[in-house]
């Protein structure tokens, strides 16, 4: 009877600990969200299908639109100027839905490295980059990036020389930020689509750099 063997209490048959069930009761705000959503559906303001479709649309976004914007900026100097002057207008020009928030693009150079954080919550350029990674929403990232940015970047594997100024951008209000990473050396022969493949999500948050190939 193989299932009678219970010597390793709390471990799965393969020897791993079971994860605890997350069956805590709802928080105040979770209950509020459900109540408001159900009331809005009941009153005919939105339908359950519309809510589900919006969640699907949010989940379907990924960083590829942001990468396309960066690759265009690397290859088209006039577009780069327009992107730095008005990030929303330049992204809309590429056919991307930029949403109600205004986009500011900040550019990494030989002297400046930019990194984005939202200390108050989790503001993030979701239209271009998709949902933020879990670490972006963590208290540790949010509080430490404005206090000791170079230490945080080093933990992501990015150690910057002293002569490079680090500029931290705290998305506190109506702006959203995207970092234009530096174009890697040795990529002169690549076209825009191949360049976009080098642009990682982390490089557009500023905790990484573009891939070299």
């Amino acid at each position, binding site marked *: 009877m193989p299932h009678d063997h219970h010597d390793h209490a709390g471990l799965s048959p393969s020897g791993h600990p079971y994860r605890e069930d997350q069956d805590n009761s709802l928080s105040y705000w979770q209950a509020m969200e459900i109540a408001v959503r159900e009331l809005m559906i009941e009153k005919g303001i939105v339908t359950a299908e519309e809510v589900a479709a919006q969640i699907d649309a949010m989940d379907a976004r990924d960083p590829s639109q942001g990468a396309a914007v960066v690759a265009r900026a690397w290859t088209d100097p006039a577009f780069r100027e327009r992107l730095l002057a008005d990030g929303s207008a330049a992204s809309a020009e590429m056919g991307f839905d930029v949403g109600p928030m205004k986009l500011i693009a900040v550019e990494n150079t030989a002297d400046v490295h930019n990194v984005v954080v939202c200390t108050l919550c989790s503001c993030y350029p979701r239209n271009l980059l998709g949902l933020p990674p879990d670490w972006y929403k963590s208290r540790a990232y949010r509080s430490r990036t404005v206090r000791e940015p170079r230490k945080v970047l080093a933990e992501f594997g990015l150690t910057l020389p002293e002569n490079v100024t680090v500029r*931290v951008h705290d998305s*506190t209000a109506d702006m959203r930020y995207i970092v234009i990473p530096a174009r890697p050396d040795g990529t002169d022969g690549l076209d825009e689509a191949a360049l976009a493949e080098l642009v990682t999500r982390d490089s557009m948050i500023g905790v990484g750099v573009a891939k070299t190939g």
Partner: protein
Amino acid sequence: MQALEPGTPVRVRRMMPPGHVRTPAYLRGKTGAVERVLGPFGNPEQLAYGHTPDRLPLYRVRFRLGDVWPDAATPDDTLDAEIYAHWLEAL
């Protein structure tokens, strides 16, 4: 309200009002300079409660890390944040 020009030195007001405030507590009382002028945008302190908001200039203010944290390891690195006009006093 007269818009503050980029480069204007400003101090963030040291107030602690209740409610939905988008001025981070760690920047209150700190001194920086206007990086660029944005807006006008509706005041989130009114918007959050369904009131018709005042339309205010929003500023990107650049702070030296050393002016935010006296013990900053790299004081000349910078921190930019968006601060609504009524939270700033020109110096």
